[in-house]
């Protein structure tokens, strides 16, 4: 177990309870802080005496005068040392302090100065021989100072400033006219008089309850000392001090990133580092490490990219061989594609050599990929598949055109046939119609037996003439028969002649 981070000096003389019995809160808080805080603070400080006041613990031990009243007194802000956010107009700047006027005074010669600056100036001059700092005009010191224009005061009040307690952590920024109110009432970081009587120093309002912090603490290792009250502010600095400066802290050799095991107090390590070859190489290795880190950081996005490409490839393969993609790995897909894919549809297509490793298994060391990288491989794969797809697309287009042509030709032929058929059908229909009307006419015109006899007679005569006189007589008979028939349509008669 290492020594307690804070060793108190002088050691507590009296137990806290006895001493703090009659004391108001701030003081007992002091003791509490001083004794209990060590555990909460990491760095190793030893506590010394307050600079010009007895130790807080000694104060308590003697039951010395109680703290100042709880109502703490805030120091009014020093307007002359404010930090202005914007550069003020030159007309508002005092010639003596080169800052914007604070409580400006107007001299009879119409020159303005800060009240304080002017009194400083008068202090350097002989009595009865006062003059204006600007024009050296004689001044009567007893003369009433002239009124300063209101607009000037307003402009000064409107200048934007930072809180004077910025260095204690306040981030307030506003017009100068509000500074006093802010510091006196609202600012948590204002300096107040130390709560412990006898201590003349100031602490920030937030630390008021912690009692007197104005004793020095020392870095236990190197005896550099700071005020306890500044530890809050310098806490980070102290950590840095421990980490990088303090010559007595244990530190490791610079070469430890390469394997140097030396770790001693910093003084010795510095001496060691001059001779240690590993420490000499350390900057180089550190640089390499940062580069390695950068490279590793870039791998992540690339891996995601590979994943995307892989998925794209999968979907393309699925489109190409829908039946196969269910079977899982690309490898057995490639091994079987020659047998399963019909060779006439994509005759010369081969996927690239399937000997690259599985992407799922991260075993890169044992099976180096045949390509420069998996991405290259995937890209070539992707490219060949893309070409294949476009080729197939062209072929499809071509065959579609061919089929279209074929169908069209066939169609035309069939249409011709159908025209012929319908013509023939029409002829048949006309003939049938004619024959029907021939048969129906006699019975319809004479009715009864005479119609039947007539038709028989005509038929027999018809038959006689055909057998007796041959072609000519036959046409004659036909004409007579036609004459007897109701007039036929022209188209019908012509049809009859041509077709039958």
């Amino acid at each position, binding site marked *: 177990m290492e020594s307690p981070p804070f060793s108190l000096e002088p050691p507590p003389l009296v137990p806290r309870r006895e001493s703090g019995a009659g004391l108001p809160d701030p003081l007992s808080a002091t003791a509490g802080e001083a004794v209990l805080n060590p555990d909460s603070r990491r760095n190793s400080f030893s506590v010394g005496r307050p600079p010009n006041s007895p130790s807080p613990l000694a104060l308590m031990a003697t039951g010395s005068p109680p703290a100042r009243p709880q109502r703490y007194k805030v120091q009014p802000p020093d307007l002359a040392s404010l930090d202005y956010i914007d550069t003020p107009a030159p007309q508002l700047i005092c*010639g003596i302090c080169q800052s914007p006027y604070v409580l400006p005074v107007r001299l009879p010669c119409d020159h303005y100065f800060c009240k304080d600056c002017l009194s400083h100036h008068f202090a350097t001059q002989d009595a009865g021989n006062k003059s204006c*700092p600007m024009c050296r005009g004689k001044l009567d010191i007893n003369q009433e100072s002239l009124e300063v224009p209101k607009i000037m005061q307003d402009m000064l009040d409107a200048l934007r400033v930072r809180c004077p307690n910025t260095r204690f952590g306040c981030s307030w920024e506003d017009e100068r006219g509000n500074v006093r109110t802010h510091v006196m009432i609202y600012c948590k970081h204002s300096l107040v008089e130390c709560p412990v009587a006898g201590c003349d120093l100031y602490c920030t309002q937030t630390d008021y309850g912690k009692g007197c912090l104005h004793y020095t603490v020392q870095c236990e290792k190197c005896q550099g000392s700071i005020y306890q009250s500044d530890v809050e502010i310098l806490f980070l600095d102290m950590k840095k001090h421990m980490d990088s400066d303090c010559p007595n802290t244990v530190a490791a050799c610079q070469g430890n990133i390469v394997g140097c095991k030396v770790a001693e107090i910093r003084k010795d390590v510095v001496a060691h580092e001059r001779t240690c070859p590993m420490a000499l190489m350390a900057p180089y290795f550190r640089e390499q490490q940062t580069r390695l880190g950068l490279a590793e950081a870039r791998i992540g996005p690339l891996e995601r990219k590979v994943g995307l490409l892989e998925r794209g490839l999968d979907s393309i393969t699925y489109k190409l061989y829908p039946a196969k993609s269910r079977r899982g790995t690309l490898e057995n897909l490639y091994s079987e594609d020659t047998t399963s894919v019909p060779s006439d549809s994509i005759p010369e297509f081969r996927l690239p050599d399937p000997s690259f490793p599985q992407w799922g298994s991260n075993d890169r060391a044992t099976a180096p990929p045949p390509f420069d990288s998996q991405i290259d491989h995937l890209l070539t794969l992707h490219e060949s598949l893309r070409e294949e797809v476009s080729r197939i697309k062209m072929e499809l287009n071509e065959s579609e055109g061919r089929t279209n042509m074929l169908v069209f030709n066939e169609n035309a032929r069939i249409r011709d046939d159908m025209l012929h058929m319908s013509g023939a059908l029409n002829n048949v229909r006309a003939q049938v119609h004619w024959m029907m009307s021939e048969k129906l006419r006699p019975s319809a015109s004479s009715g009864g037996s005479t119609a039947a006899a007539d038709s028989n007679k005509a038929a027999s005569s018809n038959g006689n003439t055909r057998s007796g006189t041959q072609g000519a007589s036959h046409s004659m008979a036909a004409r007579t028969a036609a004459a007897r028939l109701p007039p036929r349509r022209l188209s019908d008669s012509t049809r009859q002649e041509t077709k039958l």
Partner: protein
Amino acid sequence: MSSVAKKRILKEYAECSNDLPSGMKVIFDEANLTKWDVVMEGPAESPYAVCLELAMCFDKRSLMHQGGHFKLEINFPNDYPFKPPVVNFKTKVYHPNVSNDDKGSMCLGMLRPEEWKPPNKVISVLHLIQNLLVEPNIDDAIETSIANDYKTNRAEFNKTAQDWVKRYAK
């Protein structure tokens, strides 16, 4: 030294670092605000530039660095700005307004206590010094012999001044 004076000196330093006459450099120690070291190059158009002949031939700007380097010291009194700063040439210089001793003090114009006004700034002092190197102020000379030389025998004056520059103001 009062905090007012410190504040003012800091302010003036900030101003100087923004807007210094060309060829000047202020070396400033935060631990000791009251002493400024100034390194100044001899203005090219004055005999205090190292190669006056060259300066005539070439572009002036390229010769900026050829001037002699003069070291100055500015000391601020405790009741600055109510008293003038004290300017001393640490480098020996052949000039009517600079005392020809190991102090190299200059005391003229606004630097005189009775002439000094609190609103004057260091930067105007620096400008004054630079202008004096180009054109000495004969009527306000400390070294009357040098002033005489300057008045009556300009060529001799220039020659001696350059000699001194070569000898002291490397």
